[in-house]
């Protein structure tokens, strides 16, 4: 692990006569915000590149007017936020934004949370001096969740910026709208910036970038979150509620392991039904970006639960009888601790196939590296890394936070990236020019890690065997290539005018055979790359790169050679200057892996918690006894950033909780959250009460939610790694256990704004050859699935969804994530 902690260099700047400290290389706007100074700005988004659409962030720096969103601070810079000229510009800009903007604020879904309204008032616009004929712009639906009203749009381009720079879909862009031309007289009479901003605004509107009316994106809805006006709204939320009626419940997105900050916004269902329901999810979009499951999978609460003593007694009986408890990652730390207590006091086995492989991987990693957890997180990657490597994760589906970080590094840090994955994906190459894709054969993940060692390791630190092993892949051969050479030839030519002979030099092109030595790296060929070109490509990628990060995904945990992989990762950390982050597969997998002592197999009478079993506890309302869903309970979750995050109950719940069962079985405290302070300290948890956990971001965007797990780091010797077997690869029809984006579990499936189906996802060609339905035959069973074409997939591998626990897809795949299957048309 690289222990290089870069301390940001601070410079001092003066804003309106007062001296402040700012990070070197920071934009003026961000530096001001970090010091709690207000600079008006509409189009700028933290963590994205400056758009320069609104121009109201004008300030004066060292006597010159600059845009504070794209000018970096310098030592001793003197900044004035308001000068008479700038105030005039800003007012003119706001007047322009108000030209033809509908005045039906009363029915707008922004209902007062509107930045256009705020800045119009802030800059004191009380009269209008500009006019232009309006253009008719029709309301459209871009996808199953996105609703766009161009009449309200001020084309600040925040949506397109966040989609490109953060989300990576680049699904929307500015398009022409055919507005009237500005009156020429305005050019003279108007402030300069306001005129050019208006000129651009008058011509543009936002539209899907693929030219059709549909975005065909991952439907994350981040564009809705960043929209400063009511132009972009979730289709489900249009005219449903005013913002001020909704009560905000701070919580954590429960489905993926991102643990993103969210607010559940609740209000009574209707006039006749006064129980509260969740209307929408909002987030602190300056500091955190949500994926589709976090934003749209919210109504998965268990509404049917009641307290029934007879059922409760049966549940107690079942627990007393149980040999195994089967559960998954969708569980809070507190509940995981309760189950662990049951294991300790009653000897019940804990079976969790989703998390077990990850837990083993973590243990191998700790044994090899001496670190109990990985060294970085996705936020840190976005802030400083300029080279990312992703191995073993289908970025688009597994971990939204990693996808965003991978993309953000390319866009904002002028970064480069290596992506190793067997399934071809057409989206990843669009993240940046310097992204190299390796669609290797299934089973060669170790080769990818050896390649990383080869490319990045400090060769002096590497054990000699490893060095030799890596060198053994390299070969040099001589090749004869044809090279074009320019020769200078001197000729005597008769000058016709003078009749004298003159010496003329001419350049002649010639092709010559030339012998060169080509060194070729067998690892690259093995991984499906082109070794002859890679050296040049890599040299270009490495230009001016300083901070390197590697993201590891679920494929590695479910790999046959997971132990060797964990050792290789430890070796990479020890010998390369690379920070590592691992995605916990789904939800609270990290918390479960740390708290519970999981078993490899299930046996005997099984109690299933949101899983199949002889007696089932279910938050879906389908089991033998009801449990609260994640939006109905308090507790903490552990995320990819190694944080323990508090979440609150948004919706009422009337049934029993796991803690009630615990109280009947063993000694248990009064409330579920009393367990928070009892989480195991030796695993890195802290003895902190639930109620004292903070849940905020600072103005600079520093995440201050919950607490970070303590990591034990001890020095160990370099691990001994095994060679890999080039031939142990899967051939033939391969199924990959992978969910469509936005689907993670039964709860996302239950939510009414998630439409992705349970099925067999395949590239377009493969889907055509399979027809509408296909039977996937595994070694130990088969499943019939609808075939769904995923336009962004390439190659022959098919993805089988696993989000419905009842379908038992984990059992079909066994300990692997890839497996050979027979595909039959049905």
């Amino acid at each position, binding site marked *: 692990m690289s222990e290089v902690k870069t301390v940001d260099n601070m410079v001092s700047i003066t804003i309106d006569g007062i001296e402040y400290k700012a990070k070197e290389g920071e934009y003026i706007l961000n530096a001001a915000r970090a010091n709690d100074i207000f600079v008006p700005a509409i189009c700028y988004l933290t963590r994205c590149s400056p758009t320069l659409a609104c121009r109201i962030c004008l300030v004066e720096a060292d006597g010159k007017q600059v845009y504070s969103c794209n000018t970096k601070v310098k030592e001793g810079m003197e900044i004035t936020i308001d000068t008479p000229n700038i105030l005039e510009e800003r007012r003119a800009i706001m007047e322009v934004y108000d030209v033809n903007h509908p005045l*039906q604020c*009363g*029915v707008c879904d922004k*209902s007062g949370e509107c930045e256009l309204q705020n800045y119009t008032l802030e800059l004191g616009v009380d*009269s*209008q*001096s*500009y*006019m*232009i*004929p*309006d253009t008719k712009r029709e*309301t459209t639906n871009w996808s199953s969740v996105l609703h766009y009203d161009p009449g309200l749009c001020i084309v600040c381009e925040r949506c397109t910026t966040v989609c490109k720079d953060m989300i990576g879909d680049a699904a929307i862009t500015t398009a022409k709208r055919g507005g*009237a031309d500005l009156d020429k007289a305005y050019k003279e009479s108007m402030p300069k910036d306001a005129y050019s901003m208006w000129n651009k605004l008058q011509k543009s509107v936002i539209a899907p970038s693929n030219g059709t009316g549909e975005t065909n994106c991952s439907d994350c809805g981040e564009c809705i979150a960043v929209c400063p006006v009511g132009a972009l709204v979730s289709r489900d939320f*249009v*005219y*449903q*509620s*005013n913002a*001020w*009626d909704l009560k*905000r*419940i*701070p919580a954590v997105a429960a489905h993926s392991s991102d643990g993103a900050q969210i607010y559940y916004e609740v209000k*009574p269902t*209707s*006039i*006749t039904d006064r129980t509260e329901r969740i209307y929408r999810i909002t987030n602190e979009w300056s500091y955190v970006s949500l994926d589709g499951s976090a934003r749209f999978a919210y109504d998965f609460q268990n509404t049917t639960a009641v307290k029934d003593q007879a059922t409760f007694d049966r549940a107690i009986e079942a627990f007393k009888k149980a040999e195994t408890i089967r559960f998954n990652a969708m569980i809070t730390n507190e509940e995981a601790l309760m189950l662990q207590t049951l294991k300790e006091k009653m000897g019940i086995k804990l079976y969790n196939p989703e998390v077990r492989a990850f837990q083993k991987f973590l243990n191998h990693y700790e044994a090899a590296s001496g670190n109990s957890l990985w060294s970085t997180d996705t936020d840190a990657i976005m802030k400083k890394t300029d080279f990312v490597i992703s191995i073993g994760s289908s970025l688009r589906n597994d971990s939204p936070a990693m996808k965003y970080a991978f993309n953000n590094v390319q866009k904002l840090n002028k970064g480069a990236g290596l992506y190793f994955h067997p399934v071809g994906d057409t989206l990843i190459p669009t993240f940046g020019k310097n992204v190299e894709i390796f669609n290797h054969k299934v089973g060669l993940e170790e080769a990818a890690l050896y390649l990383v060692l080869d490319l990045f390791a400090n060769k002096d630190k590497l054990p000699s065997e490893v060095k030799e092993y890596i060198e053994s892949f390299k070969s040099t051969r001589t090749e004869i290539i044809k090279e074009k050479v320019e020769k200078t030839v001197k000729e005597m030519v008769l000058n016709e005018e003078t009749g004298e002979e003159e010496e003329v030099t001419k350049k002649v092109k010639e092709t010559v055979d030339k012998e060169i030595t080509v060194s070729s790296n067998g690892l690259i060929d093995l991984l499906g790359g082109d070794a002859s070109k890679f050296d040049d490509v890599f040299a270009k990628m490495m230009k001016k790169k300083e901070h390197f990060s590697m993201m590891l995904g679920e494929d590695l945990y479910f790999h046959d050679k997971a132990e060797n992989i964990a050792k290789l990762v430890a070796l990479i950390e020890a010998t390369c200057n690379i920070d590592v982050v691992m995605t916990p597969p789904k939800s609270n997998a990290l918390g479960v892996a740390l708290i519970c002592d999981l078993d490899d197999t299930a046996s005997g009478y099984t109690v299933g918690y949101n899983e199949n079993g002889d007696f089932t506890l279910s938050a879906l309302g389908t089991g033998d006894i009801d449990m609260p869903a994640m939006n109905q309970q*308090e507790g903490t979750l552990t995320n990819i950033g190694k944080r323990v995050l508090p979440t*609150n109950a948004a919706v009422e719940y009337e049934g029993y909780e796991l803690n009630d069962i615990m109280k009947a079985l063993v000694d248990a405290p009064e*409330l579920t959250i009393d367990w928070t302070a009892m989480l195991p300290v030796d695993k890195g948890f802290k003895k902190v009460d639930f*109620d004292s956990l903070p*849940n*905020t971001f600072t103005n600079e965007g520093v995440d201050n939610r919950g607490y970070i797990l303590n990591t034990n780091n001890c020095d160990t010797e370099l691990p001994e790694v095994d060679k890999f077997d080039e031939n142990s690869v899967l051939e033939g029809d391969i199924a990959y256990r992978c969910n469509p984006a936005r689907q993670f579990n039964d709860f996302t499936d239950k939510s009414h704004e998630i439409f992705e189906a349970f099925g067999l996802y395949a590239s377009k060609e493969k889907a055509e050859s399979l027809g509408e339905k296909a039977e996937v035959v595994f070694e130990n069973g088969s499943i019939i699935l609808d075939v769904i074409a995923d336009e962004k997939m390439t190659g022959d591998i098919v993805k089988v969804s696993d989000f419905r626990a009842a379908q038992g897809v984990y059992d079909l795949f066994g300990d692997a994530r890839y497996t050979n299957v027979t595909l039959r048309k049905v």
Partner: protein
Amino acid sequence: MSLEQFKNRNVGTQNYTTLDVGTPPETGTDKFLQVIRRAVKGELFVGLWVVMRTMLQALFKNDMHTVKYPFEKLPISPRYRAIHDMLILLESGNYRCIGCGLCEKICISNCISMDTRYDENQRKEVSEYTINFGRCIFCGYCAEVCPELAIVHGPRYENASEQRAGFSLFEDMLTPIDKLNLQQEYDGFGAISPNADENIKQTPLAY
């Protein structure tokens, strides 16, 4: 965002303060004395004289001070705040209410509630609207805040009913379409001032 409200899990045990009403009488004598103290006072006879004088004037001098309610009613001020009316547009017969929710927000006794939806014409439609008259204090804020002069107070002040709470729905308050010609503009708080036109600065329009 403050997390205080999420930390209180004992709903219903907030601090209540009891008013000091003294100690109630205990013995029979005390109780009797309290009744006497409260009932027999000099003012009693002053009151009786006033009533007697008015009665004599009404009987012999034909100087009547009351009307024969409910057969007879006094005219009331246009600013009188009684049961709400929901006005509609005279030209088209459409609702004036746009569903902005301001009345719901401003209501200090929290008795207005509304449901809205996205209708087929891509407009915001009020699908359900209700006022709980058991809780309404007829303060007039809703009428004052209404940007469309849709919700107003009407002259109907007879609220007697068999239940304490009476709910009124949107249809109950709307002007019936066949009585559109009888719809009265409201002159109370929130109505536009007679010189409103003079105070408006026009927005320049290019067409």
